[in-house]
Structure formats: C-alpha cells, structure tokens
C-alpha cells in the first residue's frame, strides 16, 4: 500500500452515505506525527502571540512552531518581526528566555550579535577569521519566518510561503475573534500575566476534538456540574446571563474553510457568570456600540478552534490555548487567560477567578479532560473496529445556511443546530478534511518530484 493510499484511508469521509470515521492509527502512529509536524504544524499558519505581549520597542517573546524555535521582537521603530530563534553561526538558540526587553541578542557560544530587527551586527574576530570573501557579503541576519501577519493583534506566522493570506485563511472565523476583541473599549486583547504550561500523555488531536465537543460536558464534567448547581442553589454564582424568551434553546456550530470551527449554545439561563455581566454600565454602553445581536453572541458560550492548534474559549472567562505535539502520545499545552484591554478591575478579578476555576490542570473541569485524553490514547491502541465518534449530526445535515449565521453576517461552510443535548460532531469534519488535504498534498507533491 502506498503512503498516499494509507493517508486517504485514515479518514473515511462519505457524506453521501452519511459516514465519517477516523482511523485509530491516526492517534497512535509515530510516522503520522512526523508528517503532521512537517506538513501541518510547520507548513500552516500558526498563532505565535499577541502584539500586546511586546508593546514597547525591543520587547521580545520566544515560542515554537512545531519543533522549531521562534523569536518575536519589536524593533526600535516599533515594527514586530518574527524570526527563527537560531544563530546563523552554528545554530545555537539566540535568545534562551521566555520574554523580556533587549536591544541586542548576543549568542553566547561565539558572541555573534543581532539587533531587535534581526540584523547581524557583530561577528566576533571577523578580521582574523580568514573567512572566504563571500562571507563578508552574505546575509547573516536572523532568518525570518516565511509569512507573518496580524489579525486584531493576534500574530500568526507560517514557516511555509505556500499559505493563503491570513485574512483568507481565517475567513469567517474572524467574526468570532471580533466577538472577543470587541468586548474591549479599545478593541484590543491582552493576556492576564501568568502563563500556564502543562502536558498530557496523549495525541494532540484529542485536544483539537475536545474543544469542539459539547457532548462530553455532562459526563466528563459531572463533578463540576454538581458544583455549579450547588453554587446556584446557595446563591454564590453571581449574576448569570439569560437569553430572551423568543430565542430557541439549543446547541450549534459553524465550520469554516481550512478546518476552523466554532461551537456555541443558547441557554435560557447560563450555568456560569460572565465578566461582562459584572459591569452593567459598561454592558449598556457596549450594547449601543456593537448592537443587540452582537451583545447576545458575546454573552453566549463560544468555543473557537483555529486549525491546527489554537482554541479560544469564551465562557465564564476567556482562555487562549495552543499546543504542540512532543510525541505521538505526548502534548504540551500553553494556556493564557485572555482579556479585553481596559475592562473594569472587578470584571478582571471575576475573569481571573473563573479562569482558574475551570481551566488548566489545576481547574475543576480541564483536569478531567486531560485524564480522559490519556484514557482515549490507551484505548486507541486497540486496533479492531471503527469508532463511532464523529457521527452526531450527520442525519440532519450539516446544513449550509442558518438564521444564526445570517444574523452574524457570516457564511460558514457548514452549520449545525440541535437541542441543548445535541452535542454535534460534524464540526470536527472540516478539521480532518484539512488535515488529510495537507498530508496528501505533501505526498502528492513528493510523488511528482
């Protein structure tokens, strides 16, 4: 069997037959992870940071795209550049710190220096180095990523030039970034200081799926649901947002090109409070600015996934999380509390408490998810038989247009909507189609070469 055939076999996608299956091997085969790293993570747009993380000249942060070390710097003129964090002399990491402010980065190995625009300013002992003449004219600056763009202060980079413009890549998923950013009086987002890093011993796609999975909530998070009910009973929940009586309760999703999707739900009364609701005066002001419809959507829980590794969860608080695979069965998560710049001190306090309550390995919900991923990983090693994990919603759809999309002024590729307990799974499909397309594109390209 050719590699090509084996990749296409991993996703059994037959809309005409209402069939969709993902092979168990997609979660367990290290060879597949290698392909994913090269041809998805290191070839697609990747979220690398917020402009507000590096507000001043010479501010920097470091991160990774797939396996590759990345350095983001704001130069003396205020321009943000995104570079591979590797010395042009002999590959050493140029900046070993997470974040800071420096005009120059000096490689500690032999002392080459780079300025905050990435320009190589010093080659130590250059004149005595007996370098060939070609070296003197060579471009020795830090290597820039192939593509680097910004949407609403979210910085994305791609190590491959073969990607659409960021705006096209994000498509109508942008509307759901706007719904978070527009909660700020100045339209900007920031991270609350304090980044949390954790790992789980399972494949990264379990996180990808879980962020789009409302079906698991009552079961996986049963202990958390009890706590929420207990808080509501004892009156310690704080104000809970409510939907207008003419809204039909339910759970829905939109899917976009390039594998992005968003889940949302309409509940008569939300289970959790919202930072926005703690500040009625600002909420009223915001309603005038953005309109009733968008306020309504801002207060609905929305779980956005930008393929392949960014999720923005706006529920009782907002979380921005990214991941990178360390092995086929080990994933490193980076989690931030995401906040509108300029919210009130009380809204910020509530946001932080709600974030800690739900998210992270220390939160009362995410910790259960992490354990579930590990149980799934062990279970995926069983090889006989399909899983039936991607079928909810296939009988009725997905539908191509909906009133919900219309009121937001977006045209998703697919929409789904059902009863509150719907827990649709068709919203995973576009991600898997993009996954298969990127892996196959490589194999096709490789075969031609």
């Amino acid at each position, binding site marked *: 069997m050719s590699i090509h055939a084996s990749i296409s076999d991993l996703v059994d996608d037959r809309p005409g037959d209402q069939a969709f299956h993902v092979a168990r091997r997609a979660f367990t085969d290290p060879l597949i992870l290698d392909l994913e790293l090269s041809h998805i993570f290191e070839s697609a747009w990747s979220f690398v940071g917020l402009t507000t993380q590096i507000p001043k000249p010479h501010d920097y942060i470091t991160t990774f795209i797939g396996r590759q070390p990345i350095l983001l710097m704001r130069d003396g003129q205020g321009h943000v550049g995104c570079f591979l964090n590797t010395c042009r002399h002999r590959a050493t990491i140029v900046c070993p710190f997470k974040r800071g402010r420096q005009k120059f980065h000096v490689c500690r190995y032999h002392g080459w220096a780079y300025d905050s625009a990435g320009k190589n300013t010093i080659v130590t002992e250059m004149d005595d180095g007996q370098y060939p003449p070609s070296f003197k004219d060579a471009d020795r600056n830090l290597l820039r990523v192939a593509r680097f763009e910004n949407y609403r202060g979210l910085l994305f980079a791609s190590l491959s030039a073969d990607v659409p413009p960021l705006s096209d890549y994000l498509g109508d998923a942008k509307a759901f970034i706007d719904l978070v950013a527009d909660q700020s009086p100045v339209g900007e987002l920031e991270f609350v200081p304090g980044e949390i890093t*954790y790992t789980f011993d399972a494949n990264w796609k379990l996180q990808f799926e879980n962020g789009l999975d409302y079906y698991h909530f009552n079961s996986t998070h049963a202990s958390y649901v009890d706590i929420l009910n207990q808080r509501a009973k004892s009156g310690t929940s704080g104000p809970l947002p409510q939907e207008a009586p003419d809204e039909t309760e339910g759970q829905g999703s939109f899917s976009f090109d390039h594998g992005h999707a968003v889940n949302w739900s309409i509940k008569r009364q939300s289970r959790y409070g919202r930072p926005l609701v703690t500040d009625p005066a600002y909420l009223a002001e915001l309603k005038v600015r953005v309109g009733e419809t968008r306020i309504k959507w801002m207060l609905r829980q929305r779980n956005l996934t930008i393929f392949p590794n960014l999720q923005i969860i706006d529920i009782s608080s907002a979380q921005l999380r990214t991941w990178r695979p360390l092995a086929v069965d080990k994933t490193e998560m980076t989690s931030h509390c995401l906040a509108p710049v300029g919210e009130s001190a009380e809204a910020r306090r509530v946001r932080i408490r709600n974030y800690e309550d739900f998210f992270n390995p220390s939160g009362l919900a995410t910790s259960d998810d992490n354990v579930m991923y590990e149980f799934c990983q062990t279970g995926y090693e069983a090889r006989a038989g399909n899983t039936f994990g991607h079928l909810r919603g296939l009988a009725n759809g997905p539908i191509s247009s909906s009133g919900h999309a219309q009121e937001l002024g977006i045209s998703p590729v697919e929409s789904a909507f059902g009863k509150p307990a719907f827990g649709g799974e068709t919203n995973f499909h576009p991600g898997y189609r993009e996954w298969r397309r990127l892996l196959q594109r490589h194999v096709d390209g490789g075969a031609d070469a």
Partner: protein
Amino acid sequence: MLERMSPDLAQRKQAAVTILFLEARYLDDKEWDSWAELYEPDAEYWAPSWLDEYDTADDPNTQVSFIYHDSRSQLQERISRIQSRKSITALPLPRTLHMISNITTSEEEDGLVVARSNWTTHIFDPRVQKQYLHFGTYEHVLKPSDGRLRIARKKIIIMNDRIPSILDFYSI
C-alpha cells in the same frame, strides 16, 4: 547567637511546626475533612503562577494563579469534587507523600506565627503507573483561635510549574 524565647513563644513555634506536619499527614492519609478543619473559615489558599523565569505572581486580582481561594468553603468544594466519585481525576486517586523541611518561624503582631518551609510531594498515579514530584516552598500564616493555631493564609510556590495532566490540593 541563640535567641532566648519565652516559654509561650517557644510553645507557639512548636505548635506551628506540628500543624505543618499534621497538614501533610492529613493530605497523604486522605483525611480531607480534618485537613480543611486546619484552616480558618476565611483562610486564603494561594498557589501563584510564574510570570517569567524568576518571578511568581504577586497579585491574585490582576495575575493568574494555579489555585486561589479565599475561604475554607472553596477548599471543601474541591474535596467534595474528588469525593463525589464523579471526577475521573480521582478514579483512582494518586498516592502522595509530602515531605517538609527547613522550617523557620517568626512571630508577627497579634500572636500570628509565620512559618516558611520547603516541600516536596512524591506522587504515584496508579492509573497510568507513572510517578512524578512537585516541589517548592510554603509560607503558612498561623493564627491563634479557640486555644489552638489555625491556618489563616498559605502561599505555595510550585517550582516545577510544567504540570503533568493534573494539579490539585493534594499534590502540592
């Protein structure tokens, strides 16, 4: 130079050390209710995040913490969650072993005793047959109440803050 302590003060310092060890024992023995009883009803329980390589968060209202609670009832919420047999993180519960050392105490106003210590928790998770450990420092502020000392404030610095899957009150 050795400081001369009043018998009363010496007793309070000894009581502080006893509470630290008792707390560790209750956690490892999973005697959660007794553990929570060591805390004042309005106790602050705080495990801050790290802001960078050197500094931990110093303001829970503007920075992220791993865990921040400002009442005993919030600790009891965590206890009820893992006792409910509905949280998979507790099915089964990891085995833990706390070690505390390098304790120093100082006396503050109003009879408060501040105890600083180093801690290690060895954790074995029978679910996945894996072991790991967390380590860091504690700062306990202990307050005389009903003829005994209770924990009014506990700050937990977690030095290895890249967390494998779960972090709860019993693992730090």
